């Protein structure tokens, strides 16, 4: 997605443990407000898990795409 500037991309494909969401939590913690952290995941649970955590923590989903079994989810750190 060209209009979103990704600050950091995390390749969590094939990761079961600690898992894509845990990698994202770690990524968001070290990011600055306004940064966009993208996660690549092959775990279809990520499409549910990640938005759920993001909403709960008050961040924003910049985009959520999938191509076959692969998900690409970007999160903007809001606070």
């Amino acid at each position, binding site marked *: 997605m060209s209009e979103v500037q990704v600050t950091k991309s*995390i*390749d*969590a494909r*094939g*990761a*079961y*443990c*600690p*898992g*894509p*969401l*845990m*990698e994202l*939590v*770690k990524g968001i*913690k*070290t990011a600055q407000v306004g940064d966009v952290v993208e996660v690549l995941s092959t775990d279809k*649970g990520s499409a549910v*898990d990640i938005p*759920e*955590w993001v909403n*709960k*923590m008050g961040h924003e989903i910049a985009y959520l795409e999938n191509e076959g079994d692969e998900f690409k989810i970007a999160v903007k750190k809001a606070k």
Partner: protein
Amino acid sequence: MTKKIVILGAGSAGTMVANRLARQLGDEIKKREVEVTLISNTEKHIYQPGYLFIAFNEKPSEHFIRKQEALVHRHVNLVYDDVEKIDVEKKMVKGKKQYQYDYLVVATGSHPDLDSVPGLREGAHNFYTLDGAERLRDDLAAMEKGKILITIDVPHKCPAAPLELALMLDDYYRKNGRRKDIEIKYSYPIGRIHSLVPVAEWALPQFEKRDIKYETFFNLEEVDPKRKVAITMDGSEHHYDMLITIPAHTGAKAVLDSGIGDESGFIPTNRTTLKMIDQDDVYVIGDATNLPISKAGSTAHYQSESLVANIISRLTGRPETAVYNGKVACFLENSLEDASMITFDYNNPPQPAETSDLLHWFKAVYNELYWLNAKGIL
């Protein structure tokens, strides 16, 4: 010219790699074609999974500690030094002395950061350090009533350990008759009690059956040790009588100071070759990598198999064809007497085995076999 292999860090991964290389390259080492140097900043080798058993006073600390010298093969050049700088351009590492290498294996581990949250160091217990496990042992034994709160931050090693702690605590206090006066509350940063769905589903019925309280989406931001409250990202306050924390981990200080890691000090690593990204002569193993897989001793064990095979291929002029497939194996203690276990890799998700006393016994046996594993025999 002697080919110099330097292994930095003599924990589980570094010791295994050094010993496996020494066992397989005996002739080359004797002929001085190859030299294997292992750099350790400590003379003691501690089997970290033992911390959980120290905390419950199941075994004394010494049971899990050996002298590094006693574990290392005679063909390994073991040196004690605290490396400060890793210079991949000059192909050397530097502490009190300098070590030039042809191939470097970074095995400097991951380290709990008690300063990652304000107030944590003063306010919390932990079982991720020897001192912490011993203090926890004494304070758990002395605790008669009150609320134990468990908090977990990311990244951390051994993703199963906090869950095991909660389940073992329940059994420990049931056995000594204090369970009715002690509340156990477990928390987790995301929306279920473990990052792996099958593991969360394995543990949840136990939590419910055994009245282990839990809260999800629990992201610790501050601890006030005076008032004994933990404050989360949403501003809410959680009282505790004893706080047990698994703090966020960082890579080794030497990695952070050398600027070769990410912002947390983990080294960008190729997931199958275990080479540091953009460096053909640097391999990374165990907790030191940035790979999104469990930071566990079993991970280091499986990684050492392909990494050692590739280094040997390289030394003998063959192609490096061994591939690390992401394999991890973890025991899941369900109490002081029974356990489950999981194995998984990049392509196969975990499924907990049926909980049994036999698996608990198997973990106890592995705790003893570890030393053979570290020696590169198993």
